């Protein structure tokens, strides 16, 4: 059973890693002026909710399967994701707003955030991998 949990987490984590990479690539495209703010933001906003869900699922799964350490590790990031999604002002077009993204260094902070998430997901990936192998061996 445990191995199933980790296999799922691993797959989910892979998806999140890909998503982070996609965010970074798109944002740096915007930075280098390859795409315009409008299309960049509409591309990224599409994936904000899947990201939130993907991460929330793993977090909840860890809570259910009583892996406290991993759960606590994931909790702040998941909370941040949800907070960010909820706190979008009513007039904005999503977490990424084309009219704001070039202002007040938002692009940079989005970029930084995506980088940190990428690192975090990589860390999680190896943790899940290790746990999965351990679980498989135990089975």
């Amino acid at each position: 059973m445990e191995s199933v949990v980790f296999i799922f987490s691993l797959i989910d984590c892979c998806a999140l890693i890909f998503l982070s990479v996609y965010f970074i690539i798109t944002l740096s495209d915007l930075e280098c002026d390859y795409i315009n703010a409008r299309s960049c933001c509409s591309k990224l906003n599409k994936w904000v909710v899947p990201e939130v869900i993907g991460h929330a699922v793993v977090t909840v799964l860890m809570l259910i399967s009583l892996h406290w350490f991993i759960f606590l590790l994931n909790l702040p990031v998941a909370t941040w994701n949800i907070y960010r999604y909820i706190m979008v002002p009513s007039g904005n077009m999503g977490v990424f707003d084309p009219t704001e993204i070039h202002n007040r260094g938002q692009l940079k902070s989005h970029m930084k955030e995506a980088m940190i998430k990428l690192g975090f997901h990589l860390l999680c990936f190896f943790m899940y991998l290790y746990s999965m192998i351990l679980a498989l061996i135990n089975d």
Partner: protein
Amino acid sequence: MVNISRGINYSVLPQLPFNLSGTVLCLCPMQSQMQFSAGYGSHLPNYSAPSGHYSQVPHKAAASHLDNQYRASYYPNYYSAPAQNVMTSVGSNVLNAQESQQLYNSTPHTGGSSDRPVQGAISSASYLHMSAQQSYSAFDNHYSTSVSSSVASQGFPLNSDHYAMPMVSGAMYPNVSYPAVAAGGVYGQTFTSQNLPAVGQLKETNAFSSQSTSVPHSLQQHVPVGHNKTLPTVSSAQSVQDKLSRNLTGSVAKYGGYVNNQASSAPAPLSSSSDDEEEDEEDEEAGWFSPCFHPLKLFLPLRQSITLTHQPSKASKPFGYGYPALQPGYQNATPPTPVQPSNPGHHPGVNQLSSSLGGLNLQHSQQPESLRPVNLTHDRNILPVSSVPAPVPNLNSDLRKLNCSPDSFRCTLTNIPQTQALLNKAKLPLGLLLHPFRDLTQLPVITSSTIVRCRSCRTYINPFVSFIDQRRWKCNLCYRVNDVPEEFMYNPLTRSYGEPHKRPEVQNSTVEFIASSDYMLRPPQPAVYLFVLDVSHNAVEAGYLTIVCQSLLENLDKLPGDSRTRIGFITFDSTVQFYNLQEGLSQPQMLIVSDIDDIFLPTPDSLLVNLHESKELIKDLLNALPNMFTNTRETHSALGPALQAAFKLMSPTGGRISVFQTQLPSLGAGLLHSREDPNQRSSTKVVQHLGPATDFYKKLALDCSGQQTAVDLFLLSSQYSDLASLACMSKYSAGCIYYYPSFHRSHNPAQAEKLQKDLKRYLTRKIGFEAVMRIRCTKGLSIHTFHGNFFVRSTDLLSLANVNPDAGFAVQMSIEESLTDTSLVCFQTALLYTSSKGERRIRVHTLCLPVVSSLSDVYAGADVQAVVCLLANMAVDRSVSSSLADARDALVNAVVDSLAAYMSTASNLQQSMLIAPNSLKLFPLYILALLKQKAFRTGTSTRLDDRVYAMCQMKSQPLVHLMKMIHPNLYRIDKLTDESTIHVNDRVVPQPPLQKLTAEKLTREGAFLMDCGSIFYLWIGKNCDNNFIKDVLGYPNYASVPQKMTQLPEVDAPSSERTRSFISWLRDSRPLSPVLQVIKDENPAKTDFFQHLIEDRTEAAFSYYEFLLNIQQQICK
């Protein structure tokens, strides 16, 4: 004598779409055979004027004939200086944008493209004819004498606290005062003091306002007549100072340029005397940029010794050429020196120097002026007599002359700190305030087949690049070395080869290029105007339709555009009505679409029609429209669907949508709900709902922006209409927002009059379509935040679907890399737009500023108005993204931090006093004014829409207008005298001194005029002199003056004349003509007036003195 080449004709025709090849032609040698007339630059208008005449005549011979004829008839007396500059085939010309705009419009369109050149020529010519004479007459003789900045004018009568040494400042004034004159008196008044070798007398020239095109000949009389006049009082001296410093950089620069041309275009007997000197300057400039520096010829011994002793490595610094003005011998006495925080009262370097240089005390009083400590709590009279001048960058005189006008381009710090750390220490924001599309009275227009730009950063060539040798130039932004193209080697000004540094691009910091097809993504669009009108019950009740239709009818012929101009109308209530105006119909057809959930265009082809072909139908419609809906019972408003329809209609071409809305949209997409709680209006705590409620309008705006369509919003509402949400449609599509609270045609005549005047300006002003603006700055600086109405498409590219001359922008910058290895930084804005004549143009402004390494120098160069405007923009952002209280705190902290930082640099100051450098002495006052402004005030009842509108204004107004909004000007006008007057055209304009904004200055015996930018309040005291009331207001006594009075009668009495000429002079200095409101004590509008007295205490806010004490307390903490 001198002939005008056809090059001019072409250059006067920039409005013509496909006439460019003609201008390109000008650059070929064949053209250079021609004799070019005098008149590059300010002279141009004179000469361009005739172009209208002979552009109808295709032959050169005829042209010259006409030219002579013209000259004989127009300037028989003034053509005394044949040396006047050479007009070039480059096609530089001077266009009064605004004027020419009007004239385009007044020219009837015949439709055929072959007719266009002639039309354009005539129209611009006819306009130029007017303004030309003005500048000509004012300038005629100055040119030859103004050649060098070091021509010292004697006896310049100014003596003001800004320039402690009158002699010293006199040295500079001659240069400075021309621009104002030639600039067509953007400010309406100028003053020239010039020691003319030729004439040998001191001359005072009084000039005209830009708007007044009349009385072309009057100035000719003034020139001789006004001589030997000195300014009677300090007040006009002050105003001159104001003018000159405003006009200083940009316009002076131009003159510098012209003068150069003149000097080098040798067929000039008059200029020969100045020739050598000019050459020197020319060399100097060349040497300036070249790697090895040649010591300035003018100031040899001093300069060398000083630079050697202090900072030999930085001999190239432009610093050290003295603060505003010095006589040549002393100019070099201020080299950059390390900070010496001990004595802020004097420039640190000066102390060291004065010991070694003995008698140079002159410098002593010069430099520290902007750093002179001002004790704010003691010194109560800090307001200048006339308006506050923009500080002049501390550059050497050459660069200063070339620099961009502070009206178009201003930086918060005119001395750029070397590192971000230094900037952080100064606690002042670094940013630019731009007014790029401002109406200019003169603008060199350049047509050339290749526009020279840096290969790597794409910077346009500008006066601040350096020529390494004849064939290479070094970009001043990225330092890449570029080749000079072959075409650029030929200098049409001098008709010589191999003088690229004398091309107009390199002589003017504001130029306009006619762009080639490389700068087009599609053929230039025609001017397309769509009017979207609310016709619900509410709208009909308010009666705005009559005014709009009337204004449109009056200005239909003046709408900017060419023969392709298209126009359309949509009205909406709970349904959307379209109007088929296809040519050939006997009357306009109304098509009603009631399916507002899925809006469609009933007949897509015939809704937007050619203005000229369907003019009769359009007129019919405009006449019928106000009465069409008189009995409507429809109270709903389907604004969202109407806008969607408008977007669909406009998307194939792009253009301008003007939306008139009178209530909260209540149907269909984009419907809004009332969010305002009237009980919270005067809350001191939280002000909510400053941001939009829905993203519908933002999305729509971005869609529009993508299709090159701008949406302008006119909100005429008596109730809450959620401007915060509605404004998004204009904010992101580069539109503009007008708001008329409690508009009613008959109950509120002041607003009705304002709408009428605003519409007139709105419909007739210049417009640029499908525009983009890019702001570049020297490597090491980067822009991180933009303010204004536009969409930021990529890191430094602003997408402006429309650009209008009343739009201002602001950007915030940070210093990414240390600027230690450079002594100058430059900023360049390039605005690429399609003119209403379907021509692609690029307007380029370049600003150059020195880099400094000491904190006191940073303070010395602070531009307090720019700082306040930038802070206002930042505070708007903050109050939307965070909260109003945060924004207010941030504003107060900005003052506290910067003054504390300043005081900590000055260790010998008594900490118990509140000291500010002279450059920042108005900072606390302006911040207090901001805190009491509608946008940021708390405690006073403020309607949410009013507040949001004030915020929108802050983001989109250019600096001059914004400053009046923040800190109005108060004048006492019941005792206007003929003393301290200036002459504008042939009118005498009195110049009453500025009063502090406090009730203490108001007396019951007086009458006061408050200039708030968009409105004038005329407050009449209870015991005001009956003669004044009778003469000026036209009523026998105070009691009989009516409550709602918006006009001053024309009474034939000196006091009436003076008052009216003063008010009209104030009006002429701005694009929107403000409404005058007469206020008596019992008038309800009294509160509006008294709210602007910001130095007084209110129930909810500090008085100025309390505010200062509060700041002091916070600093001491």
